[in-house]
Every structure is written in structure tokens, then in C-alpha cells.
């Protein structure tokens, strides 16, 4: 008798919990569909408020990072500050992660994401992208004693290092699903692991791998440019057309003064030199 009541009680606990979680999931899903329509601020509302919230990375040097005086710096930040200036509002920088950029936009907690955001089909379903302001291409770096120049005929026992949430990861999953990936959650850990010899190669933005091989003797970029080149663009909450249009106008208008070339000179030259300027910078939203 006792055993039966015990089982009944357990079953009741289990059932309630499943229902509880179901409820949480449903309200979340319901809320997210409604949130997509309502929770953003138009250009006029932002101007009235006097502050724009822009989500940037705080640990991705040289695109978005915090310098030794606690100030936001980098290619994305340079553009963000210009947006603030031309809108006539103060910029409030919000530190974002790869895994929460979308939530920030969907809940309207930031107005724009300028966090090295690569344009992809999946992402376009969730947010609206403005015109691009940068190109990305991928590269693969490997050790001098075993330089990898092609991804075909990959040895399945070898793994490739990628950083989670980057374009390199997306590209490899889609085009080379058979290559075993070893994923890391930050540049620092990926670099350590690569140097400790856990994988034969490291795929990342080609500027990154080139900079790495220049600084670390013993490594060669066997594949300097991989696949089709993607673009990086500002993202706004889905449906926020006034803001997206304003940013598009801004990007087109800045072409005359070659703003993004100046941005490159100010933020990227120190890391990549000037030889990648033409291939990286997208001026006026026009991809060559």
C-alpha cells in the first residue's frame, strides 16, 4: 500500500513539473511573437529620449573592446559614436555576448547591435539588417611542419579549432560537415589550445589568422581566403523600419567622406596593417 502511494506522489510531482515547464515555454514563445511587433523605439522616440542604446562586444579587439581606461574602442564603436553624433544623442554602450545579441534586440533593451554581426539567412528571420559596413572572409592557419592548404580529403582524426558563434563556425558546419570542430568560447582559450597542439588547424576571420601568423613564428596561413565572403552590418529589432532606414541613409551619406576608410585607419591599422583596407572596408553599403 505504502509503495503505491509513494509512486502516486512521485508521479504527481513529475506531472506538475512537466506542466510547469510547458507553461514557461509556452508563455515565452507567445511573448516572443508579440515582442517582435511592439518593443522597439523609432528614430523620433530615440531623439526625444536623448540617449541611444547600442550593443557592442566588450572583448573583441579590435572591433569592440574596452581600453585600459574603461572606454569602449574599436571599429564598431567608432561607427556607433558617429551614429550618436549625427542623431544628436548620447550613446549608451551595452556589453553583449554572441549568445544574447538577438534577445537584446527583440526585447528592445538595445536599439542597434553593432557587434561584428555577420549577415546570414537564419539571422535575417529574427532581426532586420541595415546596409553592410565591412567584409569578412575566412582563413585557416596551421603549423609550419604540416601546412594545410585545402579542406578536401580531410583526415577525420584531426580536428579544427573554431570560436563558437563566429562566421568560420557557420561556414564549416554548412560546407564541410565532416570536419571535426573543436569549439572554444573565447579568442584567448582558442589561442592557448592551438599553441598547446590540440588541433592541426584554426579557422577564423582571415584578418585574425593572418595577424596570428605574423606574431607567432612557426605558423603559416595555408588558406588565406575561404568560401564566399560575407558581410557585417548593423542590426535593429525586426520591423523597426524608421531606424533601419535612418542607418541606411547614414551609411550612404558617409561615403562622400570615406568614413569607413578613416575608421579602418583609426582602429584596424595597428593590428592588420593597411594592406587589407580595400578588401575589408565596405563604403556606402556597396559590396564590390
Amino acid at each position, binding site marked *: 500500500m505504502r509503495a503505491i502511494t509513494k509512486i502516486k506522489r512521485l508521479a504527481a510531482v513529475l506531472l506538475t513539473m512537466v506542466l510547469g515547464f510547458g507553461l514557461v515555454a509556452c508563455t*515565452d514563445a507567445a511573448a516572443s511573437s508579440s515582442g517582435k511587433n511592439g*518593443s522597439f523605439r523609432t528614430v523620433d522616440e530615440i531623439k526625444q529620449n536623448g540617449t541611444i542604446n547600442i550593443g557592442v562586444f566588450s572583448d573583441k579587439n579590435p572591433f569592440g573592446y574596452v581600453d585600459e581606461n574603461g572606454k569602449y*574602442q574599436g571599429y564598431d564603436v567608432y561607427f556607433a559614436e558617429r551614429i550618436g553624433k549625427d542623431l544628436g544623442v548620447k550613446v549608451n554602450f551595452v556589453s553583449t*555576448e554572441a549568445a544574447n545579441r538577438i534577445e537584446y534586440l527583440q526585447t528592445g533593451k538595445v536599439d542597434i547591435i553593432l557587434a561584428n554581426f555577420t549577415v546570414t539567412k537564419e539571422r535575417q528571420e529574427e532581426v532586420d539588417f541595415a546596409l553592410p559596413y565591412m567584409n569578412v572572409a575566412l582563413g585557416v592557419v596551421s603549423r609550419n611542419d604540416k601546412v594545410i592548404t585545402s579542406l578536401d580529403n580531410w583526415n577525420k582524426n584531426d580536428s579544427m579549432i573554431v570560436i563558437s558563434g563566429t562566421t568560420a563556425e557557420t561556414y564549416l558546419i554548412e560546407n564541410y560537415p565532416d570536419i571535426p570542430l573543436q569549439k572554444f568560447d573565447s579568442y584567448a582559450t582558442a589561442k592557448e589550445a592551438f599553441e598547446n597542439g590540440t588541433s592541426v588547424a584554426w579557422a577564423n576571420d582571415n584578418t585574425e589568422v593572418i595577424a596570428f601568423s605574423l606574431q607567432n613564428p612557426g605558423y603559416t596561413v595555408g588558406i588565406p581566403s575561404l568560401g564566399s565572403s560575407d558581410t557585417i552590418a548593423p542590426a535593429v529589432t525586426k520591423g523597426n523600419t524608421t531606424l533601419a532606414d535612418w542607418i541606411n541613409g547614414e551609411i550612404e551619406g558617409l561615403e562622400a567622406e570615406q568614413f569607413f576608410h578613416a575608421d579602418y585607419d583609426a582602429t584596424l591599422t595597428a593590428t592588420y596593417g593597411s594592406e587589407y583596407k580595400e578588401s575589408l572596408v565596405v563604403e556606402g553599403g556597396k559590396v564590390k
Partner: protein
Amino acid sequence: MLDLGIDVLFKGTNFLRLLGGLWVAMRISLISIALSIPLGLLTGVLMTSKSKIIRFIFRVYLEMIRIMPQLVLLFLVYFGTTRALGWNLSGEMASIIVFVLWGTAEMGDLVRGSLISVPKHQYESSEALGMTKGQTYLYIILPQTVRRLLPLSINLITRMIKTTSLVLMIGVVEMLKVAQQIIEANRMTSQNAAFGVFLVVFILYFLVCWPFSRLAGFLEKKWQG
């Protein structure tokens, strides 16, 4: 290989920012634990209630909080409340809410565990002496329980301080995030900074958590003697 890159911490205001991040982590944990202790005591008493329904409700609460990953709770409270209710909580407030929910559940379970380890005859003796239920708890049961609880609740405080590293997912910049920022900002010039900075972070965590453990040990000894 001896260059640990600790020097990056002395550039500009880096070290102060790191300490600022530590303060954020401590503030969240200390406020949360201060709220969790009284709420946890109450929850623990209710968990030993004679009413099956009350026991059941608190059981489900405990199981849910324990099983849900903290990251999901943080997302639900920070982004979920904006979506569903239109609230605009700050990241820090959302963290405190999640930590209090979590702390209350864990503390409640610890209190419950201690309460049921008090011999039954003590409840009966107090009743026989004419004490009310409230008096029994206040003067007889809780003082004993608190002593047994102490080492365990100190575990919880230090655990909270250490778990604050998750709050960076909702935009709160605490010590580990600052550490990452410093490492990344200097990755071109100081390649080994990761070790130096993490070593300092390791020591700082220890320096903050250790006094709590010592305090617990001290009180435990004092009350036993």
C-alpha cells in the same frame, strides 16, 4: 615562459576596474544572501509543515529552481519579464531576483534537513512545558538548527559569489568579464596576459571567499564550546 603578463593589470585603470567588477559580484551575492537567509528559514519551516499541499508546493518550487540552469532563469527574468510584462529590470536587479529565488530554495532545503534532524522528543517536551508552536521554534529548535546550518550556508555564500560569473550573459560586467576584457584588449601586445590575469582573479576570489569560511569555522567552534 616566466612572463605572466601581469603588467597589463597596471595599465591605466585596469586593476581598479577589476576590483570594481569584484565589488559588483559581491554586492549581488551579499544582497541576495541577506534576503535568502530569512526567506530560507521560513521556507524550511514550511517545508516541514503537516499540510501535504504546502509541502507539495514547496517541493515543486525547490525542484524547479534546482533543475533549471541558472542561465535560463537569468534569461527568463531579464528578457522574459520585458516581453511578457513590459518591465525593464536592470541586469543587476534581475540577477538579484534569480539569486534570491535560488538561495531561498537551497537554504530552505538545508533548514528542512536540519529541522528533521532535531530529535522528536524535543518538540514533545516543549509542548509538554506549555510552549506554543512559535515559542518552540524560536527558543528550542531554531537555535540548534542555526548552528548545524552554519557551515552549509557559508558554502552557499561562497557558491553565490562564484556563480556571479554567469551574470555577464545579461550584460552585468563583473570581475570575470572585466578580466576577459583586459585579456582581449591586450592580446596583441601581451600574449601571456591570460595567465597573469586569471591568476590574479583566482587570488582575488580566494581572498574574498576565504574570510567567510574562516568566520563560519570560528562561530562553529565558539558555539560548540
